């Protein structure tokens, strides 16, 4: 097939061109930038000088960055399992439904995924906003109380709710499709052997959904590490800390403080962290 090597390269050329120009180059540029620090030498404006790993050493001691990582970790162990648990329950229930109600649910559950996250977060922001929130209108009418969904201690959970609202349906549809791919003979055989409906869920459905579930878990963790839009959109409406997610913090470091070299180091560290966490999972899945 040697004769076709050149043809293959031509077919690949457009993808490789944009991939190198707009994907690889920025990554290497970020690595390069991250090796510089800004320093004031004598009188005059600060200069960018080579600093080696100084930015990285600063980053791993940076309380703001670590706070973002901590929140990301909370998300990973609380929001992701809750969302995937919900998705699996809904998928199992939906697989047993029929008719128009099933179709309405299938469409409506999935709909939030199609709504731009910047728009979804905006609308949830209004549902949270102290002046507008219908929840607080109800609470106020009942016993005069109110919850500030955008206050420092609560806002992380408010963001978690937006993410859950957006992605549960997507995860559910994927699991639902995987359920449909399970051969029905398996259920028949289990029933002949005297398995109860719970046994079938526990011993057939859940184990066969595991590969899909693992993949969804990885995608969710990657998504968690990229959390930005929701936090950014809620900022004008309430109190959202600059360091609530690593991504918001590094965006502000670059866009507001114009410290691109430090933002570069933060970005590289974050990417490495994701690689370390999700790499082994992904390898195990792709080797199957």
């Amino acid at each position, binding site marked *: 097939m040697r004769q076709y*090597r050149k043809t*293959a390269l031509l*077919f*690949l050329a457009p*993808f490789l061109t*944009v991939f190198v*120009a*707009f*994907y690889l180059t920025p990554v290497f*540029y*970020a690595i390069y930038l991250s090796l510089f620090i800004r320093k004031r030498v004598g009188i005059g404006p600060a200069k960018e000088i080579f600093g080696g790993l100084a930015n990285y050493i600063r980053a791993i001691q940076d309380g703001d960055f670590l706070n973002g990582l901590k929140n990301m970790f909370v998300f990973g162990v609380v929001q992701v399992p809750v969302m995937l648990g*919900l998705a699996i329950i*809904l998928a199992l*229930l939906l697989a*047993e*439904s*029929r008719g128009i*109600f099933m179709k309405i649910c299938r*469409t*409506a*559950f*999935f709909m*939030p995924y*199609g709504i*731009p996250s*910047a*728009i979804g977060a*905006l609308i949830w922001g*209004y549902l949270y906003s102290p002046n507008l*929130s*219908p929840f607080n*209108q109800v609470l106020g009418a009942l016993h005069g109380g109110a919850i500030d969904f955008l206050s420092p201690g609560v806002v992380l959970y408010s963001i978690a709710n937006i993410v859950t*609202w957006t992605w549960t*349906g997507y995860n559910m549809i*994927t699991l639902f*499709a*995987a359920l*449909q*791919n399970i051969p*029905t003979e398996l*259920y028949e055989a289990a029933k002949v052997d005297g398995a109860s*409906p719970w046994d*079938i869920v526990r011993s057939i459905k859940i184990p066969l959904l595991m590969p899909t579930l*693992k993949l969804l878990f990885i995608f969710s963790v*990657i998504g968690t590490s*990229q959390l930005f839009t929701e936090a950014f*959109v809620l900022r*004008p409406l309430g109190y959202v800390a600059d360091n609530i997610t690593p991504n918001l913090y590094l*965006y502000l470091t*670059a*866009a507001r403080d114009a410290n*691109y070299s430090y933002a*570069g180091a933060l970005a*590289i560290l974050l*990417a490495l962290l994701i*690689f370390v966490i*999700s*790499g082994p999972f*992904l390898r195990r899945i792709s080797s*199957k």
Partner: protein
Amino acid sequence: MAIKQPSAPAEPGDAIAPPPAAPQVEADSSPVPGVLRNVVLGAFLLYCLLPATWIIAAMTKDNGQIFSTFGLWFATPIHFFENLSGLFTYQNGIFLRWFGNSLVYAGSITLGSTLICAMGGYAFSKYDFPYKQLLFNFILGTIMVPSTALVLPLFLLLNKVGLVNTMWGVILPSLVNPFGLYLMKTFWDSGFPSELIEASRLEGASEWQIFWRIGMPLMQTGLVTVALLCFVGAWNNFFLPLIVLSQDSLYPLTLGLNVWNSVSSAAGGRPVYNLIALGSLISVLPLLVAFVVLGKYWRGGLTAGATKG
């Protein structure tokens, strides 16, 4: 030997749609009673529709009513038509401009990215070349890189070549779509047999003709799926335009409506929550239409990657 033509174009969705609802479980074999099942599904249905309810109510109110009346129900008098004309005239009708921009961004990114992925996936599926597997795994691995890691240095690079604050600055970087490449490769693997290529070569067809005239028409399902995923991604894009664009006449809808929100929420700003609500609804309409019309492609495409494992 004649080139074997496919007898009929594959029914859209054929290859990937889940099999038509096989009644695999009778009602009596469910571990959960039907009533409980419907209650749980119904509760989640309400949760999913909650923001839509607020929006639909808010788009019929003026700003005063949005603050003073119950958020999840309508109020009289109805101000829907005032809001509609307000939306298209506020700030010299910039909303329409944003809508057009979103169409330009999403349209060009979808066309370009789908074609690039179709060609690249074809190369990986049908040809052999050195380091093929290594390159493919490397490209797939980059899916894990957080977008912020890219966008900030990307901004500096775009600045150097004068693409900052231009439409190209949003469009060109969005053409990169590793997941689309992966999807197209799997579609080519399963939907276009290599024997067909061999036969076409014997007939004297060029490699490009085989790809474009024989292969592409067979790839309908795959192309629509990848195009839909591209369209959703491009229509929803927020971070890249936020960084690259500073001139509001170039904004897509997602960015424009958020600017209105920032202004509305700022001290002394004129609140236009009624216009934002109506604008939000209009901004999701193209996606909802695409979803309802092409539902089976969505479901198929989303699950194609995840259920192969």
